[in-house]
């Protein structure tokens, strides 16, 4: 009988349980600002996981992810502020609304080749931002929207710690969903679209439908992320959803590793750390993002996930311990 062999998935299981425990205990020991950073981290992870499904798995470019974040954020904020909808429901409605728009938008634009797609998505998010600025009756224009206090029944959700657990739960659920999407039939269809659209359609698969579905999924993640962002900051303005933010999400998946589920997590951590290092110097922040992005594209196309995967298999190979 063979001895028990510790596999790669066992290592990652141990690691993920440890990090889950760590993340669960985080808010007890951190101050308000630390909790805020973790909230931001999770929101980045959610949004870029959606983008990763669209770009990393299905091979479609979006330069306008911030537009969907804006739809989610404004929809849920308006629902909370004007209709007194419970905030958890508002966030989900925001995500669904954003994904419906993504699905409808996907049909005409996803027929275009990647460069045109990049430009159309960019233009669409810029139009959305201008609309947010100019439809000031609804969105309050440049002044932005503030959220009232959040409660479910008698539970107060205004404290950073309780919001942390809400966002944490959403992140876990959405990461789990992403894992299932990727390993399901849908995920395989998307991967084959990335490899060859012609070959995929020759198998009788409706390519444009599945591309729109991928777009809708990424819009759903962005919308949920937007809703959580609004709930976390209790204030949103047009500046939060510009081109720079869309590029940030691309940056996250490129640095973290496109087409890896762990990519958005690594990328978001890097972005948060860099953002904090250069918090007082916005220009250096953009410079560091640009240099890192260029470096990853030139020398590290698989991103951090690739390094981590290689390191894992290296450890497994070299260490006799794991062979039992």
């Amino acid at each position, binding site marked *: 009988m063979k001895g028990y062999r510790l596999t790669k998935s066992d290592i990652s299981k141990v690691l993920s349980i440890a990090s889950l425990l760590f993340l669960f205990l985080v808010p007890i020991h951190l101050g308000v600002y630390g909790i805020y950073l973790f909230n931001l981290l999770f929101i980045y992870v959610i949004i870029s996981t959606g983008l990763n499904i669209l770009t990393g798995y299905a*091979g479609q470019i979006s330069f306008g992810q911030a537009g969907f974040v804006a739809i989610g954020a404004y929809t849920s904020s308006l629902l909370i502020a004007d209709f007194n909808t419970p905030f958890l429901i508002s966030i989900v409605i925001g995500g669904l609304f954003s994904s419906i728009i993504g699905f409808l938008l996907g049909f005409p634009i996803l027929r*275009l080749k990647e460069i045109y797609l990049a430009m159309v998505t960019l233009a669409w998010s810029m139009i959305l931002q201008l609309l947010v600025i*100019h439809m000031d009756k609804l969105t309050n224009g440049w002044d932005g929207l503030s959220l009232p206090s959040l409660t479910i029944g008698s539970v107060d959700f205004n404290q950073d710690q309780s919001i942390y657990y809400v966002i944490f739960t959403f992140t876990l659920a959405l990461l789990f969903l992403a894992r299932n999407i990727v390993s399901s039939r849908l995920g395989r269809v998307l991967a084959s679209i990335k490899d060859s659209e012609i070959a995929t359609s020759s198998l009788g698969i409706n390519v444009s439908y599945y591309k729109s579905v991928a777009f809708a999924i990424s819009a759903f993640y962005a919308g949920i992320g937007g809703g959580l962002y609004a709930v976390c900051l209790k204030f949103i303005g047009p500046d939060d959803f510009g081109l720079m933010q869309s590029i940030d999400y691309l940056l996250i998946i490129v640095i973290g590793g496109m087409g890896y589920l762990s990519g958005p997590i690594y990328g978001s951590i890097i972005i948060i750390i860099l953002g904090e290092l250069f918090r007082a110097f916005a220009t250096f922040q953009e410079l560091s993002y640009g240099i890192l992005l260029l470096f990853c594209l030139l020398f590290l196309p698989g991103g951090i996930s690739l390094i981590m995967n290689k390191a894992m298999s290296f450890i497994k190979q070299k260490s006799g311990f794991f062979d039992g």
Partner: protein
Amino acid sequence: MRLPSMEKYMLIQITISGLANGCLYALIGLGFVLIYKATEIVNFSQGEAVMIGGYIGFWLTYLFKLSFVTVYPLAIIGGVLVGYVISRPLWFLTNRKAPLFNIIVATVAIGMIVRSLARLVWSSESRAYLGPSFLKTITISNIVITSENLFVFSITAFFIIIFYLFFFLSKTGTSMRASAQNPDAASLVGIEPKKVFTLTWVIGCALGAIGGVVYGPIATIMPDSGFTIIIKAFAAAVLGGFGSIPGVIVGGCLLGVTENLAGLFIGTALKDLISFIVIILVLILKPSGILGVRIERV
């Protein structure tokens, strides 16, 4: 529709100043289209070449009081340098057959680096300077063509003619066109792909820098102005038929006029919306643009 005579003049007036803006979009879009045609890369850092050209124009005309005869050649040299530096990492990627997505995002990254460096060196303040004023303002029965507009028309025409002569008549231009049409066949007859690649970027960015010097007096120059103008150039290229050189000139002029008329009828606040709407509508409804270049659809 019968307009009172005053309003008719105003309409013509606005069309003329829109045409001047349009010439600028055409000039900058030309470099954009050239790079796309020869290398299939959409250069998101083209706007940064424009911005640097604008700053060169600002130093030389405002600080050193040089005449435009020296400013333009120096700006071209600046654009050439920028183009050379930008093309290095991109050639590295192209040579390794990196996916197009990576190359496009690399141009975005380069744009970010250049923009933030500009912000560090020159601060985010906007700079303005006057264009040359040796041309006389022309007045034809109430319609005024200002000397600034006249200068924009003539300088754009000048550089577009030079570009055409170079691209379609010179040997280097012909080898560039050959390489754009079929890189493998071109390299078989001794056209070095790397050389053509670098040359394309150098010329594209030089056209951008020229556009920047023209742009400076019309608007103001700041590190972020590259992005505003590149969207317009892209819209111009899309409108005319992406990848078509006459198309981008026609599209640019049309876009400039449309924008100004929209500013008159809808309001200037939503003027910037026009180029975004043009991009989306043209690509969805008639991706081949006005001059009918076929775009591959899936």
